[in-house]
């Protein structure tokens, strides 16, 4: 089968090689999926560079999620061939979705929410699951609360903007230029702030009449997150989701104390199937009732994947990209 493979660490445009790879065989508990479309995210770039914590050793095919149809099943797996699925992949074992087929545990596959096409659904699950875990489970975001989303125009951030809006929060998108602010407002953010304009914390406090923001969704880290954290309201929650900037925010414990705020870890990897089913049902409801839109902005043909990942690495992408066959 055709696949994009990484054999050594480096920039996506340099290290992704088109190869004829063996079709992966599903092991016990696994299914094989013939790929319709694959979600593209910053972790794929970080995996090319070997800087993502869950990068497998040796050669691997990246791509953390996708949609497609079941083409084979492992021993003891009761799933009909031809079933349409939306799933994460066994990328940690080297079988990602930037290929014709990937394998994944049957436990990691879900039905495509009605109202989402296969292409839109390919980049839906990881960003929206993470946003749900962060905003609902971990932050217990209430309607009317102020939510600031850092890196809001990225694939992870825009999911949090839309879900925050669907949950009834007032959403401020924190971005790096006016085009991204405009995109976020178009996607449902109440406000868009360019952090390059300075005094971010002061503007956030002013925007909230001195109250401060109740929650910050932070897939970015670094100095921007450190500054937004100083605008948290009492009982405010800083959700540590990732480090797209390349560095974590460095948070002083004494600042959490004097501001009566919290640093909240958000990691989607440890959830049980019954918990994931419940979240899948909630998200599917939001989609089918029209309260949550898909955020796919760019469809990338399979052959163009390296240049698309490089644009993501270079921060020149707005919104969510999906690879299509």
């Amino acid at each position: 089968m055709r696949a994009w493979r990484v054999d050594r660490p480096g920039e996506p445009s340099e290290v992704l090689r088109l190869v004829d790879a063996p079709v992966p065989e599903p092991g016990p508990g696994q299914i094989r999926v013939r790929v319709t479309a694959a979600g593209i995210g910053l972790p794929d770039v970080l995996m090319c560079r070997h800087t993502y914590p869950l990068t497998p050793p040796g050669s691997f095919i990246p791509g953390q999620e996708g949609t497609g149809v079941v083409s084979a099943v492992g021993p003891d797996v009761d799933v009909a061939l031809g079933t349409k699925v939306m799933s994460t992949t066994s990328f940690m074992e080297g079988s990602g979705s930037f290929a014709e087929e990937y394998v994944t545990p049957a436990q990691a596959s879900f039905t495509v929410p009605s109202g989402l096409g296969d292409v839109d659904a390919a980049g839906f699950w990881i960003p929206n699951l993470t946003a749900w875990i962060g905003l609902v489970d971990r932050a217990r975001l209430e309607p009317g609360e102020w939510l600031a989303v850092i890196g809001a125009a990225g694939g992870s951030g825009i999911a949090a903007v839309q879900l925050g809006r669907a949950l009834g929060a007032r959403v401020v998108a924190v971005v790096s230029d006016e085009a991204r602010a405009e995109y976020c407002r178009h996607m449902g953010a109440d406000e868009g702030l360019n952090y390059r304009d300075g005094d971010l914390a002061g503007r956030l406090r002013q925007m909230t009449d001195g109250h401060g923001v109740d929650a910050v969704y932070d897939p970015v880290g670094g100095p921007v997150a450190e500054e937004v954290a100083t605008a948290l309201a009492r009982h405010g929650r800083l959700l540590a989701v990732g480090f797209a900037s390349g560095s974590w925010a460095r948070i002083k414990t004494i600042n959490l104390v004097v501001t009566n705020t919290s640093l909240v870890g958000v990691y989607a990897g440890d959830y049980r199937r019954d918990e994931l089913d419940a979240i899948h049902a909630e998200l599917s409801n939001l989609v089918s009732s029209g309260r949550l839109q898909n955020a796919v902005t760019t469809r990338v043909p399979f052959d163009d994947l390296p240049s698309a990942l490089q644009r993501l690495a270079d921060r020149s992408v707005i919104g969510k990209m999906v690879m299509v066959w």
Partner: protein
Amino acid sequence: MRAWLAQEFGAPTDVLRLDEVDVPEPGPGEVQITVEAITINFNDIDGIRGRYRTVPIEPPYIPGMEVLGRVRAAGEGGEGMIGTRVCAIPAGAFGGYAEIAVAPVAMTFAMPDEMDTAAAASVYMPFHVSSLALYERARLSADDTVLVHAAAGGAGSAAVQLACARGARVIATAGGPEKLRFATELGADVAIDYRNDDFVARVLDATGGRGVDVAFDTVGGATTLQTFRCMAFGGRHLLVGFASGIEAEDEGIVPRPVLFGNFSLFGVCHAYTEDALEFKRATGMNFPSHADGVRLHEDILAMIAAGAIRPIVGSTSSFSALPEIVGAMESRATMGRNVVIVD
């Protein structure tokens, strides 16, 4: 009036001197208190050692951040409290080691006249801090397992009691058999001697490997980082104080272990203000209002009256022996609250 002054930064028994000083006058929003008893806090020692960051001060000055007494005069806005017996944090969190102290109304709460002096002096800081942490920030429930560090100390002994009163399961850490026994008497289900045992392994053993839902951490530094390893999925780690030394906090922490642990770090600050929004505008800090504090205070007094919790008096000293008890507390030789009677 008589007062203990820190003449310079250093060891409490070396630098505290009894002196005769002017009586401080209350400004607007402040009350002047005839001090009945002084309760010693670790922040006092940080101040005397020259490492108190929240309110920097230069010697000579009068330390002392917690007093019990009676309001004798008041500035504008505090007149209604004249004649009332109160517990209070003096203005700037110092000035309490004296016969008369001035405190903001926002940090002053009424105490029942009939309560014994030492007991009444032992209520305010530990129960307000622990209640803000466990009840308000962590929303503790009966289903939770709580780890309380320094469980025999002032704040820790209050936290153990408030957690037990809520029906939670309590795992306590303390140093030495006497403190462990004390924590168990207060209601702790498991008591771990952090000096002889790997507390992380013991906490994981005691929770079937799951970890604790809530940690009450007044220690900071290396203890905070070790505690990360015994937090349960979705746990709330309460940062309440830094008794191991504020210097260790300068480096800051990165969220990586917090993210992959799926737990939260909750900052808890005990301080009240009259105008929370104006205060935030001026300082960036989020403090509860005095009205929030009054409600919480009334709940604590009701729990004491009902026998659900009790103030823990560790020692009582005379005013002339104040430096010795401050020194003993610094060397971790005391349990419960150390009260100095102004005689």
